[in-house]
């Protein structure tokens, strides 16, 4: 098998070939290394750990076929730069963490290595996961492997997990980790024709993941297909004593849940999501998915989530508030960037100059707005009120899940947009991209983006499935059924090598 074909395989297919000894982990790893070396124009990998990868591959080759073999033995993965990896430079794509080398490993990545996966390197992202286009990264934006038909314009791979989505779409790794605070796994997945899953809040440990908004952040996989998502999620999930918000519940075998028929499944269509764009591409893709689900015997039920219009304003109060608190730790004292000081500068100048130089514009904006909504005199009007509206949004979902098993929505209002085209004059324009994804984060619910097909520009577009708490098996199985009928092929023309 030549190297191009090898790297088109996902996690499951690679695992099968490794198990049959038709390929070796070293061969597979080298094929990905070659692809990564040729992909500098995409700007997806910002730290390469090839020596480590080849050592892990060599070890995997000795283990495969023995009793010691684990679920991801010999599978090469990419890791979003938000995950701390021991002795590997980790900066959350920010200057303030300049050359930071974590002395510890995040729980999620440790679980992947315990399952004998291979680490190819760190993936680009929006600074501190704040962004929807990858343009806030200190490393510069990732370029989407997909281009509009007949155009050479560089498109966003989405954000914040844009390095992860681009790397998976461009065959630079079998799968990648992402994190999702307001849509940062699902929106990039929709823009790149990949499968992105944000698990239920508490499914995966947040320990060692650089915090943005702690009551929203969740890690999850970005993969080529639904089966790979199930395999990777199993390895990432589980209770962790180091994160008191991780849930003490059993981890299901998500892969086992795939393939069951979905006759009688009640699928909710929220009127507040589907109809506002009228005859849009996003709605046409939604219609395609509805038709398939109906043909499979699912029941389509119109439902209402009346507080949906308040979701984005709620999010843009609460997430910056939490960020302003989480990012207070970056003071230039112990690690990362420290500003050059004048002779008479005090500790206050050390903090203020370091943070001014180290944070990018969008991150500063969010720290400032977060500080404002938490400050004396404004706390009740903004923060406290938003926390109450968050309850109303959660109640909406609780009511709807009494009537349906799953909710179907578009993932994004449109397909990938050109870099530099949004949010330059008005930050709120960029925030609107998260309109369909943010509600699941506010309610802590699991949600998955599945590619449906190409739009009239020749670009991939996804639909979103939202499930009730801990219903990832149902979510994945529904997506699996849809995927089988859609037969979407993720094969962007390889212009970058």
């Amino acid at each position, binding site marked *: 098998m030549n190297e191009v074909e090898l790297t088109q395989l996902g996690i499951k297919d690679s695992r099968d070939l490794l198990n049959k000894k038709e390929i070796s982990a070293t061969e597979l790893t080298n094929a990905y290394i070659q692809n990564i070396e040729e992909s500098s124009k995409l700007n997806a990998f910002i730290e390469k750990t090839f020596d480590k990868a080849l050592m892990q591959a060599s070890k995997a080759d000795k283990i495969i076929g023995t009793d010691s073999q684990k679920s991801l033995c010999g599978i090469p993965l990419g890791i979003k730069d938000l995950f701390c990896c021991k002795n590997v430079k980790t900066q959350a794509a920010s200057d303030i963490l300049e050359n930071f080398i974590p002395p510890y490993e995040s729980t999620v990545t440790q679980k992947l290595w315990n399952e004998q996966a291979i680490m190819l390197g760190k993936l680009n992202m929006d600074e501190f996961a704040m962004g929807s286009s990858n343009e806030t990264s200190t490393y510069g934006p990732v370029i989407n492997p997909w281009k509009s038909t007949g155009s050479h314009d560089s498109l966003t791979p989405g954000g914040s997990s844009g390095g992860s989505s681009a790397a998976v779409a461009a065959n630079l790794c079998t799968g990648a980790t992402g994190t999702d605070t307001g849509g940062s796994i699902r929106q990039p997945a929709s823009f790149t024709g990949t499968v992105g899953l944000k698990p239920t809040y508490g499914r995966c440990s947040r320990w060692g993941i650089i915090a943005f908004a702690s009551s929203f952040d969740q890690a999850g996989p970005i993969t080529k297909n639904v089966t790979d998502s199930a395999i990777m999620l199993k390895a990432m999930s589980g209770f962790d004593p180091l994160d008191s918000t991780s849930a003490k519940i059993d981890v299901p075998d998500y892969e086992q849940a795939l393939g069951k028929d979905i006759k009688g499944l009640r699928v909710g269509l929220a009127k507040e999501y589907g109809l506002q764009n009228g005859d849009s591409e996003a709605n046409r893709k939604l219609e395609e998915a509805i038709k398939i689900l109906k043909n499979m015997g699912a029941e389509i039920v119109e439902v209402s989530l009346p507080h949906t219009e308040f979701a984005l304003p709620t999010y843009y109060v609460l997430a910056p508030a939490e960020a302003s608190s989480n990012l207070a730790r970056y003071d230039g004292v112990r690690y990362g960037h420290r500003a050059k000081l004048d002779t008479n500068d*005090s500790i206050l100048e050390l903090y203020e100059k370091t*943070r001014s130089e180290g944070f990018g514009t969008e991150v500063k904006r969010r720290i400032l707005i977060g500080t404002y909504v938490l400050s004396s005199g404004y706390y009740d009007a903004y923060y406290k009120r938003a926390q109450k509206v968050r309850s109303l949004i959660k109640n909406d979902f609780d009511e709807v899940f009494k009537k349906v098993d799953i909710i179907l929505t578009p993932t994004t209002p449109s397909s990938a947009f050109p870099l530099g085209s949004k949010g330059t004059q008005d930050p709120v324009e960029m925030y609107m991209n998260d309109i369909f994804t943010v509600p699941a984060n506010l309610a802590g619910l699991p949600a998955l983006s599945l590619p449906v097909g190409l739009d009239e520009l020749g670009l991939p577009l996804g639909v979103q499935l939202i499930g009730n708490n801990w219903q990832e098996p149902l979510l994945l199985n529904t997506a699996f059924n849809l995927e089988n009928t859609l037969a979407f092929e993720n094969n962007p023309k390889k212009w970058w090598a």
Partner: protein
Amino acid sequence: MEIDTETVVKIARLSRIKINEGESVDIQKDLNRIVEFVRKLGEIDIDGIDEFNFGKTKIEDMRKDSVTIYDNTDDILKNTKNKNQDFFTVPKIVE
């Protein structure tokens, strides 16, 4: 209420972020745009609604408050040039 220049200076100080005069105008404009966007929350009746939480943490699920020894100080100090023996150095704090 609109965020005025004075408020920008105040929240920048609270945030420990130095803002120069050139940046201040743009920041003020952006912050006001965001505040205008989230003002929509004022339209909603929240009487009798509790603040959101994920449910109560069960005491039995919490880890024991036991001492753990962490002694790789060297690894931690590798991340800074500003150190003296096993200590971080900062500008003089006490006169």
